[in-house]
């Protein structure tokens, strides 16, 4: 099940691995994305640590790790063509895959219904 953070990241759990990206709402608010910086594979993050950067023409935004863990894959396609983030933020334009170190952290995140309420 997809979960969301207050900082507009999404997390999709598959086994002990999670795919992470920014929400459609966040991508819309940012506007046209022109630059993405992703962490290195193997880097470890604590929950809520700054993990990636996404910049639009207007501004730079940090992307925070929604859960603690180790980066096992990054999506080079969005680094090469940042506009892809706007095209499919909750699908093909994921940011990183992370190996969770504490699955319990997921429980505190919002489900889609609660997130919709937050951004309404």
């Amino acid at each position, binding site marked *: 099940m997809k979960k969301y953070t207050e900082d507009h990241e999404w997390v999709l759990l598959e086994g002990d691995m999670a795919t992470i990206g920014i929400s459609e709402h966040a991508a819309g608010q940012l*506007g*046209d994305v*022109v*630059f993405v*910086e992703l962490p290195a594979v193997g880097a470890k993050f604590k929950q809520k640590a700054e993990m990636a*950067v996404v*910049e*639009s*023409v*207007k*501004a*730079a935004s940090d992307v925070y790790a929604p859960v603690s863990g180790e980066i096992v894959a990054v999506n080079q396609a969005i680094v090469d063509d*940042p506009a892809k983030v706007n095209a499919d933020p909750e699908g093909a334009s994921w940011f990183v895959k992370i190996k969770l170190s504490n699955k319990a952290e997921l429980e505190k995140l919002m489900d889609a219904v609660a997130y919709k309420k937050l951004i309404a």
Partner: protein
Amino acid sequence: MTDSAGLKRTPLHDVHVALGAKMVPFAGYEMPVQFADGVLKEHLWTRENAGLFDVSHMGQAFLNSRLPLGTDEAHKDVAAAIETLVPGEISKLKKGAMRYSVLLNEDGGILDDLMITRPLRDDAQGRLFLVVNAACKEQDFALLRETLSGRAELEICDAHSKFAGARALIALQGPKAAAALETIAPGVATQAFMSMAPNEWKGAYLIVSRCGYTGEDGFEISIREESAADFARALLTHPDVKPIGLGARDSLRLEAGLCLYGHDLDQTTSPVEGNISFVLGKRRREEGGFPGADRILKEAARGPKRLRVGLQPEGRAPAREGAEIQSLDGEKIGVVTSGGFGPTMNAPVAMGYIDAAHAKTGTRVHLIVRDKPLAASVADMPFVPHRYYRG
């Protein structure tokens, strides 16, 4: 008009909202930062077609000679008055010509940048039309009133103005701006760059200036508030014209190498440091007689300690306002004052102040972004060549 948050609204407010604008607070006004297309597309549209910008938040005023209007003497009189505050050659401006200039403090720092226009009409000689920044307009007008008290009268274009009335200001910018405006205000297509001429639309008196702040050909049209929304709607029916928000206005002017007051120019920066020495008129350089002339003329002769330069980051990461500029050996040598992504350049662009010793084009520097050095080099401006109308 004012909304619940105490923000003022321009006469185009309803036009923006109907077009799906995202409204944000800016200089005390509720202004459109972008429309549905977004900053990137709006920017590119303006470079290819024509963009309509609401700049009604800016301050408009006439400075009037105390002499009877309609004579060259009256122009010389009001020009001499404003020349006590600006370093430009205003006295010799031709009828209908305009100048970019700066209001100076006693230390030679810039209080604001502004446009000064000598009217075209014979009966208006002795007036100067001023357009100043929104965030500075109250201080600017107070300064003009106080300093020039007894020498000239300031008539702000607001509800109290009998002559000009409360006026909106609409910019139409881009290579197709002239053709689009020509369809509803005939005569503008052949108007000279940096000139102003009266025009008319459905009985509304237009003050049309061929100028702008995007680096493209274009116009700024001053019109009475009550006619402004209909005029904007009429322009927007043209297929080449789209509404453009403040976001793209900023990226367009950045690529054009133009200063944003409060960021690239402020009360501590002189015109020489700001790399806008062209505002110093030839006679004024010889005679002085403007605030801060000692410092400014010294800097003009010997070179300033720091200089505003263009900065071209390598790679894709933008460096934004506030980023420190370091030499390759890690010494702080300046600061970025404007920066972001240039959609036409399809690359990050920035400008900032750098120690004069490092200001040479091509000098390699580091911009400190998120605590990491980003490789960049000092670059010539404009980043995107100006395409002004040259007849």
